[in-house]
């Protein structure tokens, strides 16, 4: 189990009802972590519509996770 620090933005923040949380997870990749959290928070948005950043850099969904990683999920926004 890794401890991962997570930050949500835009619609994900609304759906989760929180801006950030720290989770204990066995997810091996950023993608697995998203699927786990999507189920818990009922995100409803497919991965293909989002981007993930790990430790302040955009990453692929296959990116392996390590304890202490900071993960940010970012939906695109279009308001102006």
């Amino acid at each position, binding site marked *: 189990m890794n401890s991962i620090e997570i*930050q949500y*933005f*835009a*619609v994900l*923040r*609304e759906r989760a009802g929180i*801006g950030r949380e720290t989770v204990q997870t066995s997810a091996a990749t950023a993608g697995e972590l998203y699927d786990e959290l999507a189920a818990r928070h009922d995100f*409803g*948005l497919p991965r*293909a*519509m989002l*981007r993930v*950043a790990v430790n*302040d*850099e*955009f990453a692929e969904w296959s990116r392996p996770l390590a304890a202490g990683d900071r993960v*940010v999920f*970012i*939906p*695109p*926004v*279009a*308001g*102006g």
Partner: protein
Amino acid sequence: MQTFAFSTVPLEPGRYREALAEPTAGGYASFEGWVRDHNEGRAVRRLEYEAFETLAVKEGERIVAEAVRRFGVTRAACVHRVGALGIGELAVWVGVSAAHRGEAFAACRYIIDEVKHRVPIWKKEHYADGDSGWVNCERCAAVADGRHVHAAEHPLAAAHRHDRIDQAASGGVPPLPPPDYSRQIALPEVGIAGQAKLAAASVLVVGAGGLGVPVLQYLAAAGVGRLGIVDGDVVEASNLHRQPLYGPADVGQPKAEVAARRLQALNPAVRVDVHAERAEASNVDALVAGYDLVMECTDNFRTKFLVNDAVLRACKPAVFASVHQYEGQLQVYRPLPHWPCLRCLWPEAPRDGLVGNCAEAGVLGPVPATLGAMQAMQALKRLLGLDAGETPALVIVDLLGVETRRLAAQRHPGCDHERPGTTPAAEEPGDAMPAELELDFETLAEAFESGLELVDIRESWERAHDPPGLQIPTHLPLSELVHGRAEFPAEGRYLIICAHGVRSLSLTEHLRSLGHPGVYSLRGGLAALKS
């Protein structure tokens, strides 16, 4: 004696000098400004001076008082001529008496410099070739003399455009002076040369809404030489809380035109081009071609990606921003081989309305204002060349948590910058022929008669304000469809309707891509209907 005055008759330095005499004074220094026969390489026949007198006298008196206090001189005064003057005539006189010559010279120099800088006085030059023009710019003379930079690069050159001059001449009112840029010129990275770069630059601003307003205001105020405004909308009452460039009296007026008028008043030296139209595939390349830098300030993905592809084709830099409730995203594009574009970050080009929409999500004014100000700052950085060594990133701003995050970004290997928009996502069938996705109707009655079933996809609270006779019976809120709580009928022919035609077009595209052939979007939404 008044310490600052205007005179409509020839100046009499001898008389003014007497008023400065005082037993404690050990000397007197004076400066006289004369009308010379040339300016910026043109032969000048005569001059006319005009001043905004009430304001000018107050400011002039303030300057003289500052000089007396700052340099500890005995007495000081300044008299400026107004009206018509011939070559060699005295235009301005400054006199200072003081215990010692050092303070007298320094105070005299201070007064003339500050008067030239701060007092609203306009000079109309009548040239030997019969032409004439209003000039208000002490720095012009400095520049023309070669003391700072070449005249062609002069930061205030835009103030001398003929359209300005003609307009002022025909109205009989001298043009207002451009802003005093001294506070930004004072930055070592800006300076006179940087100001000249801004004056020579042109920026296209796509969208004059929550983001576009601060972008336009700050770029105009900073003295960017030419601004283009692309916006096909009219001002709506619901815009005002976050777009304070507009007021209630502007509701119903074309945004681009109102914005242009306001910017012109803000900085008369800036040229503003009005493009009162939406950016579309048919016009975007021509729009982008006319400018050095593009600011993407619209509220929909469709236009954002349209602009992205156009700047890639044109090899122009661009600054993108978007907001959602209390957050915003900022991305700078530079036409460099390694630099990611909008599609590199979002290979699956998002569809409007499917991941949170501004009208339905709500927004507080300072959120787009902050992001717009950040966009303006990125634009100035680019124009001034202050972005050397910067690496590509998406910057996320959270105004609730008051935090920014800079996420390093890279080019997406599948994104073809040579043929922008040809990523797999963009080749989905829904993106192919936008013209056939949208239908035009003048009234709701006409739409009812078309044989299509009308489907209102607005949220319930949006429908609450509809007049009773204009309710659309079939209601499928987009939020319900997106979250799977409602399904769009698989069979039949439908006209999908929302407030402005953005969400409906997006849903239409989505349904078509799923193989639903009978769906259309009402172009421009309810806002485009006549009744």
